[in-house]
């Protein structure tokens, strides 16, 4: 079935559009295969609203005059559109039939299943070409750039046909002394074949963060020699490594009943296991739904708001993610040990914790390019199932399947870090908001599919444009940069006291007047910085910057944060 066959009514005139905090507009509504287009009626300087149908999370329709009076009699309908980026719109459409047609087109076209029918495969802007490399970096390039790895680590292409681990990229970094056969055996011992691979090597001390899925020890405590050797090779001569298991000890025990398990002390004697409970899947998705619902609660009771905020548990998830990331950083940076992070599948919380730890540890991941590379490496290449996780957002009434806003949670955590270290990140909140939008509905192919294998099969790299490249080319837009950025080499260790964590108003109150006030403040910051640069002249020195180095708390002084981990 062609996409256009879903469209019974393509154009409606005299539609009224209502948006929060804007006057209502009248104009023409148009449905295409991938977009909803509204343009107001003025001929010149007309204002247009273009919404990707995929951005639409839920649609509610109410029709007056159900008895089929003709349009002239004034039958009309209202469609409420709730987008995945949390925008809510209302369209008043004259004509009941038109209204129902539009609604059914939106319903059908906003939930396309086939990847190649999605808009990124049709998006052809004139300033971009499809030839040339896709993405920012590859495993091989990352290896080449990281000199510290050359001695003890190698790039393995054991997964080049995705047969060892379907969700891993074709190339991974593993200890030099472990050969591909051992990797294959280790993969068989790990859920989904996600054997331990290198995620990050700390530039200061060479300690590493590894990630994997849970070992398949099962009820009768199976073991795998090769898996043990692999981990042994990771810590090499040093005394101890830490396994951060993102489940409670009890959950890990229970996992054995269903074939999963954990690394037992007796077989992995040089590894110390620490359990940290993290919620996953449906529970986190429901948190998002509850939080968004609470944010739009019209009641004026503070008690009700606080109780709903608490009940949503969203900030608790933010708290756990940052706490565990802090724990990983503590092991790597302060104690000088390598760490293996895993939960069950190793595709969600594992990536969340390992990427946050890198942001805290590694100055390189705090630049725009560095951060996008981090996302590419730790989320896209590492096989976070974006298509499943981001099929729906906070408004959908559809039954939940695999949805889970773990990536949104990551962006929230990054925002919390930015709030506490407002000078340490090169990018701005606007970049995080852009990513929060793109991950659910995009012109670009970056967040399509669930793994590199699927992207390969669908021809994503050949037929779509890469978001990250486009963000960086030719020059990154000013709005995505932090005007106050000052690189620092220190670990930026966020406080995880509940008082230190806040609701991410930029995201959750994005479409309110409040956001406009904040925008004003941002513009003001920019103008102060620019004015200062002009005054300082072209040869501005780092004088002003250096005075603030000591305001950054070195990590030694942050020890008191750790006691609540």
């Amino acid at each position, binding site marked *: 079935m062609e996409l256009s066959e879903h469209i019974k009514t393509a154009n409606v005139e005299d539609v009224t559009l209502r948006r929060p905090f804007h006057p209502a507009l009248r104009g023409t509504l148009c449905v295409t295969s991938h977009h909803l287009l509204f343009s107001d009626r003025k001929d010149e300087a007309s204002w247009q609203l273009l919404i990707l149908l995929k951005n639409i999370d839920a649609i509610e329709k109410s029709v007056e005059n159900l008895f089929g009076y003709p349009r002239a009699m004034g039958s009309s309908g209202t469609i409420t559109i709730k987008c995945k980026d949390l925008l809510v719109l209302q369209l008043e459409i004259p004509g009941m039939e038109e209204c129902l047609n539009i609604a059914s087109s939106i319903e059908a076209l906003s939930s396309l299943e086939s990847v190649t029918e999605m808009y990124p495969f049709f998006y052809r802007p004139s300033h971009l070409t499809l030839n040339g490399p896709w993405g920012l970096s590859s495993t091989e390039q990352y290896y080449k750039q990281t000199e510290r790895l050359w001695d003890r680590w190698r790039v393995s292409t054991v997964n080049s046909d995705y047969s060892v681990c379907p969700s891993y990229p074709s190339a991974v970094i593993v200890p030099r002394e472990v050969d591909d056969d051992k990797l294959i055996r280790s993969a068989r011992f790990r859920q989904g074949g996600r054997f331990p691979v290198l995620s990050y090597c700390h530039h200061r001390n060479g300690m590493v963060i590894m990630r994997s899925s849970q070992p398949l020890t099962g009820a009768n405590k199976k073991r795998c020699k090769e898996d043990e050797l692999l981990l042994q090779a990771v810590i090499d001569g040093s005394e101890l490594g830490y396994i951060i298991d993102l489940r409670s000890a009890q959950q890990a025990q229970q996992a054995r009943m269903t074939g999963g398990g954990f690394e037992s002390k007796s077989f992995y004697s040089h590894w110390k296991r620490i359990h940290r409970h993290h919620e996953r899947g449906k529970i986190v998705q429901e948190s998002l739904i509850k939080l968004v619902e609470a944010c739009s609660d019209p009641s004026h009771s503070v008690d009700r708001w606080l109780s709903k905020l608490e009940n949503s548990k969203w900030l608790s998830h933010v708290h756990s993610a940052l706490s565990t990331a802090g724990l990983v950083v503590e092991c790597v940076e302060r104690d000088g040990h390598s760490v293996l992070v895993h939960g069950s599948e190793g595709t969600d919380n594992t990536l969340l914790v390992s990427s946050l730890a890198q942001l805290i540890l590694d100055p390189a991941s705090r630049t725009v390019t560095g951060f996008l590379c981090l996302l590419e490496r730790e989320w896209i290449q590492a096989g976070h199932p974006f298509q499943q996780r981001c099929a729906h957002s906070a408004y959908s009434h559809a039954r939940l399947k695999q949805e889970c806003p773990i990536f949104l949670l990551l962006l929230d955590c990054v925002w919390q870090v930015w709030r506490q270290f*407002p000078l340490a990140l090169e990018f701005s909140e606007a970049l995080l908001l852009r990513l929060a939008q793109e991950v659910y509905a995009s012109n670009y192919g970056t967040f399509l599919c669930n793994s590199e294998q699927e992207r390969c099969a669908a021809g994503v790299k050949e037929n779509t444009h890469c978001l990250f490249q486009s963000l960086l080319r030719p020059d990154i837009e000013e709005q995505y940069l932090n005007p106050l950025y000052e690189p620092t080499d220190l670990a930026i260790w966020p406080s995880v006291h509940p*008082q230190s964590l806040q609701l991410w108003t930029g995201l959750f109150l994005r479409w309110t007047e409040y956001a406009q006030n904040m925008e004003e403040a941002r513009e003001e910051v920019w103008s102060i910085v620019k004015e200062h640069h002009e005054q300082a002249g072209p040869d501005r020195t780092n004088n002003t910057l250096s005075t603030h180095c000591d305001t950054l708390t070195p990590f030694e002084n*942050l020890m008191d944060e750790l006691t609540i981990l």
Partner: protein
Amino acid sequence: MEHIITPKVEYVKLLNRYPEKKSVLGTLYLTATHLIYVEQTNNTRKETWVLHHHIMSVEKLPLTAHGCPLLIRCKTFQLLHLLFQRERDCQDVYQSLLRLFQPEEELYAFLYNPQQNEEDRRQGWEFINVANDFSRMGLSNDYWEISHLNKDYEICSTYPSVLGLPKNVSVATVTGSAKFRSRGRLPVLSYFHKDTKAAICRCSQPLSGLTSRCVEDEQMLQAISQANPNCPYIYVVDTRPKLNAMANRAAGKGYENEDNYSNIRFQFQGIENIHVMRNSLQKLLEVCSMKSPSMSDYLTGLENSGWLRHIKSVMDAGMFLAKAVCEERASVLVHCSDGWDRTAQVCSLSCILLDPYYRTIKGLMVLIEKEWISFGHKFSHRCGHLDTDPKEVSPVFTQFLECVWQLSEQFPCVFEFNERYLIEIHNQVYACQYGNFIGNCQKERLEIRLHEKTFSLWPHLLKNQHLYRNPLYRRSLECTVLRPSTLPLHFKFWCGMYNYYDRGMHPKQSVLDQLLSLTQKQVEGERTMTELQRVRGVVGVVDFVRVERYLTDMTLSPSHPFTSTIHCAFTKGQTQSLTHGLDW
């Protein structure tokens, strides 16, 4: 000082909030004005200074294996947990502090001398003049006039001597209305809005009881109504919950009966009384000092404290006033019970919403001087300056400051001052270092000759205004009336105030400092920078000023062990290393 049993105790531990962090041994000093704790490790010397007046309570905790603990809670929300090795020392310090922090007389301000001469002192007190604010609003005019009827405080003892009254209102009406109002606090002008000609007036509750009425009071309200050509009615806002107001009727007080007054629209606002607010803050502070709460513990505790609910109720009432004035062009008369707590909160907040002037550094001083100090907010009682009835203590003024902070969070570009200004004012209210917040009303201050014996805070704040500047401040014209959202989710916990001393909870880098230092250039042009400031940048300025202030403090106790050290270091220009270790 005869209260100080032991001026120095060695080997005292200052326990950290987080037990695992090593606490080192230090020395505790008691001076006439401060408690000072000094920690010396290798080359760093860390000093913690606490003003006696800032202490709220001192509590001896049960003996532990490690020593005798003493818990000191401060009105600035600082918490000091000291551990003594000898029970005797602990007892001595405890006894001394009990006498020092709740003096029966002799507040710090009467001793404090910022090395100004009498002329400076006089000018300092004249710096903020409430009468000038009346002229700024355009008084006297066709509708309102400045009256000196209360010059001897005979009509109302807790009101200022200068009042704004409707033009041509008779003396009989004024005195009659005063007699019908609790403590004689008759309806008078708080703020006149030039554009709409609408006024905000304040008073106390009427002595209406169940049936009483008063012709003069009715005439008074009529006069207020007639002073506004743009609206035929006035709002009468009782800021109390309806239940409380009704309970007062039984005691011969109460609220206006709409039938007796022509063209009034009566409205309750539901702000709770001082006792509820005191208990709410108590609960909030318990949440703040929880050892390692989970996110749920914290949010549930925050909810149960009710604190943000109360803040919102004050804000809602302030919004109601501002809306009536700017949208309906209607005048408003506000009262609570005595008209010096909730009424002060609501009137001053609506002034800030309506008039950009009060959002400036100087404007806020004027507003506090006008609505709080001169209209008889009982600072001495509410802040517990002297050893008074604990039931009189209540964080009413703190709530006002917090409402301003909540507004500044929603509107980052409309206030000339930053958060530190609000916190500094809060600290000064309790510090009693300057005379402004001593006493309960103008008459009382006159009687104790405050202006001759103490200094005014405002010139001191103005001198340091570069610290309190908001670099994002835009004097934009369109945004004259603030219309904040009062959705509950906009009311945030003020970590910067209630957890001020838990630096670990605060952002590790400050946008404010960064922007202040970027804009410092302009300030530099106007000021000659000292050597010290150039070295230390903005941070240094803070320390410099504080050191300067404390130096003057020190002159009170020449026997103090540090006087010579600091003076010595100061004169040699080594203040940088010294201040570095200070923990303010």
